[in-house]
């Protein structure tokens, strides 16, 4: 089963060097355990463009689709047998990237 592990942050700015190093170690651990599917960091939410093409012509809007104090800074997609395994990995991930994470299963 696959789970999305979203990295949630309230602070602007990218990961520090020591955070990046810890994330690398964690990623290797995911790969070694067969849990790795995909991961990525995201640019600041101010760089987002919202597109709505449900009408006659597409509408483009600058900025994130919701304004909130916290935003998505990055994510992992992991493979795990059950939620306990996913939570254990996400707990390590939160420590590595030094941010809150959310675990949510794919359908």
């Amino acid at each position: 089963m696959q789970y999305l592990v979203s990295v949630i942050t309230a602070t602007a700015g990218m990961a520090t060097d020591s955070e990046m190093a810890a994330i690398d170690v964690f990623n290797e651990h995911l790969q070694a355990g067969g849990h790795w599917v995909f991961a990525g960091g995201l640019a600041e939410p101010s760089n987002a463009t919202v597109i709505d093409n449900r009408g006659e012509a597409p509408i483009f809007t600058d900025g994130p689709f919701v304004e909130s104090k916290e935003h998505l800074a990055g994510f992992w997609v992991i493979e795990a047998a059950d939620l306990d395994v996913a939570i254990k990995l996400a707990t390590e991930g939160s420590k590595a990237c030094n941010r809150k994470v959310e675990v949510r299963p794919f359908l």
Partner: protein
Amino acid sequence: MSSVDVGEAISQTHHEEWARVVASLTRRFGDLDVAEEAAAEAFATAVERWTAQGLPANPGAWLTTTANRKAIDRIRREHKRGDKQKEAQILYQGDPPEPLGAIDDDRLRLIFTCCHPALALESRVALTLRLVGGLTVAEIARAFLVQESTVGQRITRAKAKIKATRIPYRVPCNEDLPARVSGVLAVLFLVFNEGYLATGSDTDPLRHELSAEAIRLTRLIRALMPADGEVAGLLALMLLIEARSGARISASGELIRLGEQDRASWDATLVAEGHRLVRERLAAGVAPGRYQILAAINAVHTSARSVDDTDWSQVLALYDQLVRLDRSPIVALNRAIAVAELDGPEVALPAVDLLEHELAGYHAYHATRADLLRRLGRDREARLAYERAVELAGNTAERAALTRRRDQLR
């Protein structure tokens, strides 16, 4: 067997077998919904059949067999309808091989699943009472003074989350066990406390059925995990508190404090059992956890023939030990109460005042302050503190007692 006896035998079987039936069905069919409904149907059939024909030789086995058949019927029906074909196929695969946790009992798997930390606390409570305790949705709703539909929704949502996120039906591994056990005990202690000091303005101050259910479930976990010190500690704590419940409410419906209770009306059997458990834990020679220390404090209280006989230095030593484990301001408040008995209210009051920032919204903080101020002869301040405590108290009997003490200072 008379019909009264049959009724009693059925309700006893329900108590003894419900969790086992739900747990074994969940293991076999991998679905809490199927297990719950099949167990409920089997018990309903039992009530009908046993009332007419008497109890079978082995009621537990009869229930398991009947419930299994009901579950298979239901899965076949749904399979035929085709809408849950995929799901039914998963169920038919039987037990996937999985690593066994520290202890292997289906009921423990059920308890750990119901108390999983990914579920909201109120869902854990409702799910545990329904699936492990066998209470109906209506009974749970009544006990917590919420709408039946609210309880129903909590249980449905929790079951849906267990399924969608794949919360495993498993006893946690040794490494995770202490944290997960403490999560289970927190749910049981919450149920117990709600029975022991019920909140709500239009309700009985004691809800015995809740505290009794919490004790029953803790006994079950104790039987399944006899070596766990905190499980023994929580059971002892509940027993020593429950032993005093008969002495806690006055004829006029006021809460009677420990110091003023008629100790002869405490339940000696429960006290003895609680003391036995505390002694067992002391003999184990392992550093005690939170519940064991709280049980030991209650053992000191229940060993004293009168409040003046209480070994307050022992109580204080235990609170010092607890403070090291649990930095909560409520523990600090209770420690201050012991300090007041040992060193006097003038020593305790400054320690209590330090907690204002954290406990300003907690009635017991104001009640404790009021009591200390009264003992120091500072009546005007004491009255104001009682006033605030009355406003904040959720329990009807407690409010009545605080109101009377306030009025005595007029």
